[in-house]
């Protein structure tokens, strides 16, 4: 078990390094001239040669690329996440302020997706090809197609239209003001949760259908065990393994989806910060945020792999 975890962590570290190189290539080398990326083509042409050289020197952009990369990697490791080009707040402070909100949304959305997806999967799998199953499958197909941010816009609009309600726009922490915080995160969490629930219901249904056919389930039934107990005690735990893995993959959907969804709800989370960085063409903030999102995604998937190995000896002992 420990050797498995160690191996997984080593691979994870390698992946994070690879990801950082990829982020660096995308944000610093692809744009050609970073000053064009910052000022736009129009602004760039208005700068004089001397100004350009001064900016390049101040931003450390005139060093060789590998020096720039190492400097960036060093500052990331040291926790110095730099400054926005347009704002006074440092990125580290921004992470502290906005990060918890997005983390809450992500966690809550996973809980919602399980609370909705698993029961739907059980009903679907136990009574396949009935009206309930068809309805569940139709809803999951629908939710796979609807863009989350649009559902978010509709919810905001509907609440405003019929109830005159609008979620608070300012950030509030879970501990200082739990109610205001809940109002802030529940909307995005429901939208992202239902999006994941559609995948989980689909996967859970086919996993359960497969497990139910296994010999050991038939044995449990044959020895006279109550049908519900067989499902809850014998079938479900095995059917949930692929669902846990899927939940890890879906974290990508949550992390990425939180950006447009937070914009739709005007939630003051990290996703909204990324939207601002993109619309202001703030490449330094964007570079760090993209790296952070990818690193978190990698870490979450390692956590899921370790959890699966812990739950399933067949993987652990391989």
């Amino acid at each position: 078990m420990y050797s498995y975890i160690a191996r997984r962590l080593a691979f994870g570290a390698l992946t994070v390094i690879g990801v950082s190189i990829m982020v660096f290539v995308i944000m610093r080398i692809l744009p050609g001239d970073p000053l064009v990326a910052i000022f736009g083509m129009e602004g760039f042409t208005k700068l004089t040669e001397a100004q350009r050289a001064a900016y390049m020197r101040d931003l450390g952009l005139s060093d060789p690329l590998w020096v720039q990369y190492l400097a960036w990697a060093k500052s990331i490791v040291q926790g110095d996440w730099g400054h926005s080009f347009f704002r006074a707040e440092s990125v580290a402070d921004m992470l502290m302020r906005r990060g918890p909100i997005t983390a809450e949304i992500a966690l809550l959305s996973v809980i919602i997706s399980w609370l909705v997806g698993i029961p739907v999967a059980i009903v679907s799998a136990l009574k396949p090809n009935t009206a309930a199953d068809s309805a569940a499958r139709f809803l999951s197909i629908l939710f796979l197609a609807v863009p989350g941010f649009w559902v978010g816009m509709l919810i905001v609009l509907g609440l405003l239209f019929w109830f005159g309600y609008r979620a608070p726009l300012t950030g509030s922490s879970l501990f200082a003001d739990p109610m205001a915080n809940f109002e802030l995160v529940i909307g995005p969490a429901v939208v992202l949760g239902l999006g994941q629930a559609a995948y989980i219901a689909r996967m859970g249904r086919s996993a359960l259908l497969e497990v139910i056919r296994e010999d050991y389930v038939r044995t449990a039934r044959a020895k006279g065990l109550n049908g519900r107990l067989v499902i809850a005690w014998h079938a479900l735990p095995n059917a949930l393994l692929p669902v846990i893995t899927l939940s890890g993959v879906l974290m990508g959907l949550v992390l990425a989806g939180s950006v447009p969804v937070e914009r739709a709800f005007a939630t003051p989370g990290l996703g909204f910060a990324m939207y601002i960085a993109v619309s202001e063409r703030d490449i330094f903030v964007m570079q760090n945020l993209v790296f952070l999102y990818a690193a978190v995604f990698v870490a979450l998937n390692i956590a899921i792999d370790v959890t699966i190995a812990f739950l399933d000896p067949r993987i652990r002992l391989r």
Partner: protein
Amino acid sequence: MTAITQPLAPSRLRTAWHGIASVFRRAPLSAFWGIVAALIVAMAVAAPAIAPYPPLKADFRAMQKPPSEKHWFGTDQVGRDTLSRVIHGSRTSLTVAFGAVLFGTTVGALWGLACGYFGGRFDMASQRAIEFLQSFPDLILAMAIAMALGGGLATVIVAIAITRIPFGGRVIRSVVLSLKEMQYVEAARGIGAGHARLMFRHILPQCVAPYLILATTHLGVAIVIEASLGFLGVGIPPPEPTWGNMLSDALNAGLVPPWWLVLFPGVAITLTVLAFNLLGDGIRDLLDPRLRGSV
């Protein structure tokens, strides 16, 4: 001569007709959504002919008007007709989706073919690179690339295509790995066929079905990513109408966005994605009978 060829023509037509009819009988749902998808493609192709108004024409006497007889889907802040903009939006949406999926899946598939065929160190390095690519949530990667390259149709296509490469690479590689061991490939190698001939003449044709399945299942994802990029302001810039930037504009219209500006572009995205997803499911069932009914 004519006596032989003439009866052939109608019979071939009849076979085609039978094929289509049998698809309708066996999978009526997929066939229906296939028709919806075809109608959406037709709408995109014929956009200028169908749209009641030019999509960029402002009308200052009809600004932000709710749906009416003159403007079925209402008008936006500067009086542009929403229906016409939704119709024209389908053009960008489909161009980007088809372009990105075709480009991304093809590059991925060729890469996967090379990985599976040659194996060894090249394969090892490639698998790591693909892992790095997959470590990014796809929209985040697309956002970063689109922003770095600076917006516009071509950059959005490239950005979305790059996020599709790992899927093509993985799937085709595993297909090639099993094909490589088949006897007919061994036989061809025994006759003395070179690498290129083996790869492209003997192995590649077997990859067509998984390629088509992959491509169609990713169309829907590509449409959603394109809309999200437009919504976040890194897609195709306004005034060119796309469903994503229309939703973004609606949000910028004021504290309370007019409902018709929110509703219609979103319905367009949902219907299109739904149609392509279900069509993809149908194509998968048709081409890969082993998977039929599994999901």
